């Protein structure tokens, strides 16, 4: 009586919906600006823009699937760019910059995780506190100024220049993004760590009674998000050749929005990384189309809201309904 193969968790369908949305956007872009939109150059621009926030979103996906939330990502990105571009740090060369950015991100993430997992501070509050502190520290260190990368370390910034693209077309930033996504996808879908993440997010009590170390796992999730912020920091330094406390402004909202629109439950326990990435691409493509058509900020914002809603509805439509589970 029970035919198999349905009644399952159909995240693939949701993603199909998002891909549909992307295609529609591409059509719109192509229709409005055939010359400028549909060419490699523009694809590179979109992907590059998606890369930085994209890496942050990967970390955010882990946190949210694991039942948490991280509002401090933007601030951590800012802090890592600032700390990595101080005179002192830069004197250690490119290695120093990269290393510092990663460590700063990781440490902030661990602090978040420690207080949330062991101090039992609500994630929302803890990370909003980290948001304030990290930005404050960033302003303190940079004195509110924009610290540019010294000529000595120009090598790093050069990675952003077209003459450093791999095979002349793939920007190193986009490659970094791709790698992070690939690693993240494997970790979430093919490893015990990923399995545990879904369990911890879906029903912490059950996970605990199944013998999982829920606290330690939670800590790791935030550390992971912090690390991603560090990587994003490096990417921003490459992209802007500088570090400033104003970096990563509102990344938290953008990243969470991408994760949610990607089909991850805000309450945790269910979600896909691919969905999150598609979410990021949707948002960046929208912005790109706007600028190409040089819409005013007003029109952009207005349209953005409307498009998001339409996108979600289209997505639902394309993804057909999932079985309603009786509680």
């Amino acid at each position: 009586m029970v035919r198999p193969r349905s009644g399952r968790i159909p995240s693939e369908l949701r993603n199909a919906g998002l891909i549909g949305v992307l295609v529609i956007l591409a059509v719109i872009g192509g229709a409005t600006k055939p010359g400028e939109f549909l060419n490699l150059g523009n694809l590179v621009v979109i992907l590059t823009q998606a890369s930085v926030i994209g890496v942050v979103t990967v970390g955010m996906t882990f946190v949210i699937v694991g039942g948490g939330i991280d509002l401090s990502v933007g601030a951590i990105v800012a802090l890592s760019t600032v700390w990595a571009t101080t005179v002192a740090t830069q004197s250690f060369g490119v290695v120093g910059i990269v290393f510092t950015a990663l460590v700063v991100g990781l440490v902030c993430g661990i602090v978040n995780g420690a207080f949330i997992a062991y101090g039992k501070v609500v994630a929302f509050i803890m990370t909003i506190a980290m948001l304030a502190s990290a930005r404050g520290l960033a302003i303190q260190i940079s004195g509110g100024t924009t610290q540019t990368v010294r000529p000595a370390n120009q090598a790093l910034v050069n990675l952003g220049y077209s003459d450093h693209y791999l095979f002349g077309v793939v920007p190193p930033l986009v490659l970094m993004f791709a790698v992070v996504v690939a690693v993240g996808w494997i970790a979430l879908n093919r490893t015990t760590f990923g399995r545990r993440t879904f369990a911890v997010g879906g029903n912490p009590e059950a996970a605990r009674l199944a013998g999982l170390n829920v606290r330690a796992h939670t800590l790791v999730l935030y550390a992971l998000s912090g690390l991603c912020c560090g990587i994003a920091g490096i990417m921003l330094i490459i992209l802007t050749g500088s570090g400033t406390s104003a970096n990563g402004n509102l990344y938290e909202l953008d990243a969470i929005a991408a994760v949610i629109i990607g089909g991850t439950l805000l309450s945790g326990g269910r979600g896909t990384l691919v969905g999150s990435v598609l979410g990021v691409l949707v948002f960046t493509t929208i912005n790109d189309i706007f600028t190409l058509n040089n819409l005013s900020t007003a029109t952009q914002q207005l349209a953005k809201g409307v498009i998001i809603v339409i996108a979600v509805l289209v997505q639902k439509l394309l993804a057909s309904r999932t079985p309603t589970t009786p509680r």
Partner: protein
Amino acid sequence: TSNSEPTAASTNAGPGVNADNAKPGKHVTIGFAGPQADHGWLSGINAQAKAEAARYKDVTFVVAEGSNEASAQAGQIQTLINQKVDVLVILPADGKQMTPSGQKAMDAGIPVVNLDRVFDTTSAYRTWIGGDNYRMGFNAATFIGQRLGGKGSVLELAGIDNLELTQQRSKGFDDGLKTFPGLKKAGRAAAEFTVQTGQARMSELLQAHPTFDALWNHDDDQGVGALQAIRQAGRKGFLMVGGAGSKAAMQAIKADDSVLKATVLYPATMAASAVRVARLIAQNKTMGDLDETSVPSSITLFSAVVTKANVDRYLPTAFD
């Protein structure tokens, strides 16, 4: 309650006071309501103000900074009023929004020096001192027009669009362009005064405009990002003009190794001047080199165009 000249400055100081303005006078407390120092120019403002105040032994300097949110800043100003400072220097996040606050201070008998973003009613401040956003845009356009010989296509990379100053700069820029029939504005994008958004919007602008002759960027901070975007795309063959006048920008102009050929000044030094003026008002002195019995009610600073030719004059006062 619309009030006339506050008492502090009303009584005639008489001639001869001008000479020794720098000499210690009656001890005064200056309150300074500054913006959130998370942007090059703004932290420049706060730094300039503090540095200037520190130069006077007869000045106690009370700072309230840290918010661009209207109601929060209103609260900060109210706090300074409650502390009964002798004179207030206010750089509002938005002039018109802080008008009631300025009014409250004046009503409380505290003369207000309105810095940069102008209040809506004259009764809300004793003296206004600040830059000229409209002229900033206008000068940028004029400079570009002259360099391009009056014809070509121009891009504009604006700042935060829901700030009044951005609107004024753009208006000035447009009006300036109108004076050159041959100039046409090919595109405009609004960044958010941050390096990051500068890079993002610029790379998209470049994508949308394979060729153009000149670019005006409202703000040198976001200019850092814009310049990166230009280098990343490996684009050349156009003229870029900046805004505000950061050290980085001026050094680039001096080095003359990028498309950035000039920047239109929006001097952060205005903060120092404001503190100085505030002190004079509180001490009931008047300004040197002016044969006036009291400090003027409005001082507009000039938006000079800094180029390779004159950069050395401005470099020292640039904010970093």
